């Protein structure tokens, strides 16, 4: 039977080729899903996030770890049946704001958030105001996250917020914002609850706000 440590190490090292067999082997041998998720997969992603934050791992390492995590979750998810809460700490709707086509930062945030057990709905790039509103109605997320690289397109964020307010959905979600030109001051200016200066910190901020 593959040990939890082997599964943990496979995710942490981005071994997406072997992780499937390891997870399946553990399940077949009677390991609980809760144990696999909490004590192997999530802990591995947490470790990867910390090592990325401290400069011991780099972005390709993190993305490969996320890929391994995804392969593992594809095996686990269909077996959860009603106990999805084990794997999901909350739902995040995320997109790059209208007019902006940059998605590297957004994708990193998704990687880290999924690694931490969030269900993430990725709306993609150049996302229209209404698409965010529709996604909130459909997925009932805890967090709506805006990403933007261009100072000029950050101008659209107040419009995004207004659209959410006009739809009467503002109180049901926490808002998050990130991107190179974004600052805590910018977030405060528009009453955005979550800001992280980097992708690795974003998922931690999500957890912090939801645990409050």
């Amino acid at each position: 039977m593959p040990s939890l440590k082997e599964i943990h190490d496979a995710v942490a090292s981005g071994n997406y080729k072997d992780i499937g067999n390891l997870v399946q082997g553990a399940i077949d041998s009677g390991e609980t899903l809760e144990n696999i998720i909490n004590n192997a997969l999530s802990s591995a992603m947490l470790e990867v996030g910390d090592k990325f934050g401290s400069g011991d791992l780099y972005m390709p390492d993190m993305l490969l770890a996320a890929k391994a995590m995804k392969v593992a979750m594809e095996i686990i998810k269909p077996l959860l049946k009603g106990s999805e809460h084990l794997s999901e700490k909350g739902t995040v709707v995320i997109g790059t704001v209208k007019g902006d086509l940059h998605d590297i930062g957004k994708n990193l945030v998704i990687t880290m958030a999924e690694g931490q057990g969030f269900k993430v709905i990725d709306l993609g790039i150049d996302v229209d105001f209404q698409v965010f509103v529709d996604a909130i109605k459909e997925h009932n997320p805890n967090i709506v996250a805006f990403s933007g690289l261009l100072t000029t397109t950050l101008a659209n964020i107040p419009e995004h917020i207004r659209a959410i307010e006009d739809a009467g959905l503002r109180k049901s979600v926490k808002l998050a914002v990130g991107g190179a030109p974004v600052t805590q001051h910018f977030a405060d200016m528009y009453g955005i609850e979550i800001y992280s200066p980097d992708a690795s910190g974003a998922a931690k901020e999500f957890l912090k706000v939801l645990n409050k």
Partner: protein
Amino acid sequence: MRKGFTRKIAPVKVLSDTQIEYIHNSSLEVLEKTGVKLESERALKILKENGCIIDFESKIAKFPGWLVEESVRRAPSSFSVKARIPEDDLRISMSNLYFMPAAGAKLHDEKTGSLSVATLKENDQGVKICDGLDAADFQASYCPYFELKDIEPVMLLAESQASIARNSTRVSRGAQATDSFIWEAQIANAAGKQLIGTMEGAAPLCFPEDAVNAAFEYMDNGFPIWATGGSIMGGSSPVTIAGATVTNNAEILAAITFIQCYRPGNAVLANDFVVPMDMESGNLFFGAIGAGFHQMAFNQIYRELYRIPTCNAMAAFPNSKLIDYQNAFEKTHLALSAALSGASMIAFIGSVSQELAWSPLQAVIDNDAVNIIGRYIEGFEINDLTIASDLIAEVGPSPGSFLGKKHTRENWRRESYIPKTFDRLSYQDWARSGKPSVIDKARNSVEEIIKKHRPQPLSETQENQIQGILKEARKYYEKKGLL
């Protein structure tokens, strides 16, 4: 016409002929097999009529090699761009080199490195300072600041182009975001000048709708196009210099093919802005050697194979947050390698702190730097007069001296550029005069430009026209719900 710097030395090569062919063939393979996405049905229809295979659903165009090569042949190897005054017209070619300012989001404080949002008045002053620099031949778009305190973000590009028209007689670049090109082209026409209009991709292998619409508008106005891919090595292109060269080349060749299909002979300035990703942070790794090699290879391919002039924008931004040694080194090695390998335009002047800031002080220091970098491509004269054999014989061995000779007096200035901001004092004089730094000297230069430089103002009619255009732009964005 602005002279810029005249290329008299052979460009430095980093590729062999077979390597150039290898990259070209690989680029054609990408264009033929993978294709490039153009988010414009109008553009896709034009490409289809010209022989491309189009999937209208995915918006991907696949380009036959013969069409790409034919399009490259149609693009001129040199072209003129009209400025507000004839003295500032540009002749962009492979035998000369111009420099331009970079743009930064905010105003930089040289003492603390802190950033603050500039006002429109400070932007006007920044434009005027660039106009007062002898080596800033061209103004960027959203220049120098691209965040202004008293301007709504959606009006920024139009207001910025108006600020350039009012405070500078030089040619400028037109931007592409949120339909700004409509107003920017109108402002340029009102000011009696041309723009070089941007068509900027969203790598990998994609041109968004704004980029294509901007290209249509600028071409309809008879303006040259600044074709650029703008990928991040390891993010939106392969991490290897060769791989990133191929995808970036495929992107720019796709743009050139579209441009030449729509308006045969339309001038193109092929811009190289491909920056490695910093794998520790996901930030752009400005000042990287990979960026240097990338633009050197790019310049050689476009010069030797395509005969299309190039701009290099990698020297435009330093990672350094200060006016310091790192800033100078990151920018200078990239600008120098760009100049030596054949660029026709280099973005350089005034940038601090990645793309986040611009500094008037840095701008005047950079003006000195580019005057030296540019001189490298002019080489030095070798003839009887400069060798001065007779004089060498006349002065003879020590204690003979050349200092008091007419030849020295007549030639010393033109043999070296004399920087205005760099400290050249003896230690004693430096200590006596209060130990001025390069920043102190730059401050004096900035003050002098602000006090003395008076660019030719717009006529009352031109100013009224521009105000009318800005009013129309506001109405347009109000109607779209963006104001």
